[in-house]
């Protein structure tokens, strides 16, 4: 196997991983605040469609990403309205959001299926991009990849190095105590849910403008659910989301390149890989109950409403 081919595999992995980084990171923040939003798949699909439509109908890619984030945000606000304002069950509401987002995006997007999309161009950094091996390996991605890396660093810093992050985590551990200390529990949860929605929308946008620049019904193919599993895999730590996403990105790429690598397994079985890997990884993490108990936000999925 040539060096160029190895580099191509690595870069394809990073690109395939980026939607998962966005969506997983957003969900991580929401879960750190104690909100389990199972609607990631629906928010990603809305974001993917919005970004595709905005970029194809003349808006350009920047507007596309903004539209994607906005679509994810709107969907997450719907989730927030139900779970935070009305106190509905988070699991059921999230499922409804996934069904709703999938159906709505398929309905509104039917005129756009099969149209050629705009692909996000790679950056050309002076000097760095022209380095012999490191250039193609590290410095020729599109802006969104670098953006996702910055976001991981940013979220990590805010969560563990700032007062806001401390309070947010307290809300996820014990909303009652945080409330008693005078912190605005519901407002913080609204913020975390909205952030999660925006990032899921961005993940969808990246999917329909960079990974596969097109729109198709159900384009995310379970990536929203994999992002949810990724948060558990990452034991709620931002940097581990990044590594987990690369692992799953690698699975997707392996599946596409299996023939070239001489792996004689039917395509259907290769397509099962990401899903089976998700289950395997979940088992490996969850079999250690102490690890889980120490890191999982204690109030995850619990409704909090103030006593009057």
């Amino acid at each position, binding site marked *: 196997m040539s060096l160029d081919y190895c580099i191509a595999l690595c870069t394809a992995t990073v690109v395939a991983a980026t939607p998962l980084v966005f969506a997983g990171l957003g969900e991580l923040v929401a879960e750190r605040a104690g909100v389990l939003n199972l609607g990631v798949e629906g928010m990603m699909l809305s974001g993917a469609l919005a970004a595709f439509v905005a970029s194809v109908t003349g808006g350009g890619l920047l507007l596309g990403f903004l539209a994607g984030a906005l679509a994810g945000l709107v969907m997450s606000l719907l989730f927030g309205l139900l779970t935070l304002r009305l106190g509905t069950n988070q699991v059921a509401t999230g499922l*409804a*959001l996934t069904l*709703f987002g999938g*159906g709505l995006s398929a*309905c509104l997007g039917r005129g756009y299926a099969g149209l050629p999309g705009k692909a996000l161009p790679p950056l050309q950094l002076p000097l760095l991009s022209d380095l012999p091996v490191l250039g193609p390996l590290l410095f020729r991605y599109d802006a969104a990849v670098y953006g996702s890396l910055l976001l991981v660093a940013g979220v990590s810093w805010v969560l563990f190095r700032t007062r806001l992050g401390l309070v947010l985590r307290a809300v996820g551990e014990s909303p009652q105590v945080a409330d008693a200390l005078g912190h605005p529990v519901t407002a913080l949860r609204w913020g975390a849910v909205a952030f999660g929605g925006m990032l899921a929308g961005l993940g969808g946008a990246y999917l329909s403008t960079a990974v596969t620049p097109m729109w198709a019904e159900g384009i995310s193919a*379970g990536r929203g659910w994999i992002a949810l*599993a990724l948060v558990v895999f990452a034991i709620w730590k931002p940097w581990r989301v990044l590594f987990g996403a690369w692992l799953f990105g690698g699975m997707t790429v392996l599946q596409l390149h299996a023939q070239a690598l001489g792996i004689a397994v039917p395509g*259907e079985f290769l397509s099962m890989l990401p899903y089976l890997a998700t*289950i395997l990884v979940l088992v490996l993490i969850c*079999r250690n109950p102490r690890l889980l108990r120490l890191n999982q936000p204690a109030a995850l999925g619990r409704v909090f409403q103030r006593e009057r």
Partner: protein
Amino acid sequence: MALTLIACFAALQMPPLHALYAIFIQPLASAYGLGEWLLKATPLMLCGLGLSLGFRANVWNIGAEGQLTMGAIAGGGVALYIAPGLGPWGMPAMLLAGMAGGMLWAAIPALLRTRFHTSEILTSLMLVYVAQLLLAWLMVGRWQDPQGFNFPQSRAFDEALILPLLADGQRATVALYGALALAVAAWIFIRHSFAGYTMLVAGMAPAAARYAGFSESRSIWWGMLIGGATAGLAGIAEIAGPIGRLQPSISPGYGFAAIIVAFVGRLHPLGVVLAALLMSLLYLGGEAAQLELGLPAAVTGVFQGLLLFYLLAADHFAGLRLVRRPARAIA
């Protein structure tokens, strides 16, 4: 909900009342239409009943779609290769194999949850994709009909293995009776069996269940296996009914819609039966919307999502009470 729909149609520049009529009334105006209504309600009832028992115990099996697919694969395999040699026992063997296939697929998340504390939400959902890919592989490989002009489907099942119709001139089968009988059985299970009681306690008050010594893992196993069995039965009933053979797509998301059916039915067997009839109407409405109004099939998903949103929100408002504020004390 009706108001939202009217607003949607108005936004799409369609006469709202005509659209509502085309979607929800017209499909039921003929005997064939009534049959379609019951036909689609049957798998929803079956899956919904099984899931509702699990949800009662806080067992979040959302992979009924995959268990349905595995039921179809297992039952279909028996129907293609074993049942023709069994004579009159062929049909029961096929149905049992369908249930076993669904139970096997549900047993995986149950095992992972009880042994490794892995969330059954994510594992059961991942297994949906695996089951569908497995079926797709079988349909282009091993089990493909050699005389099928290379279509990805199996050969048609023997006439003797096709479930009898409820009446001529429509497509609903006797599986409906099975679903209704199951609803009665589920009601008895909840009200009069010890296992049903422990599951109820486990769902409503986990701490009390632990204190009473009810085994948590047992209620997880019960919840998952019952859901898997009914979903598997729904799968085999679909392919041994209107479809008559195995093919890559056997269900328009019945397994997912059944989650909503279970909630809309308030996790009560009678409620689930009624909710399945309602959801089936939404499916018919989705099809009619495709034909009459040119909307895509996915409009059903929008209906379903909205229905669950409204239900959850309605729960909140139904729980509100007028409270008279006590007269404010003098500060």
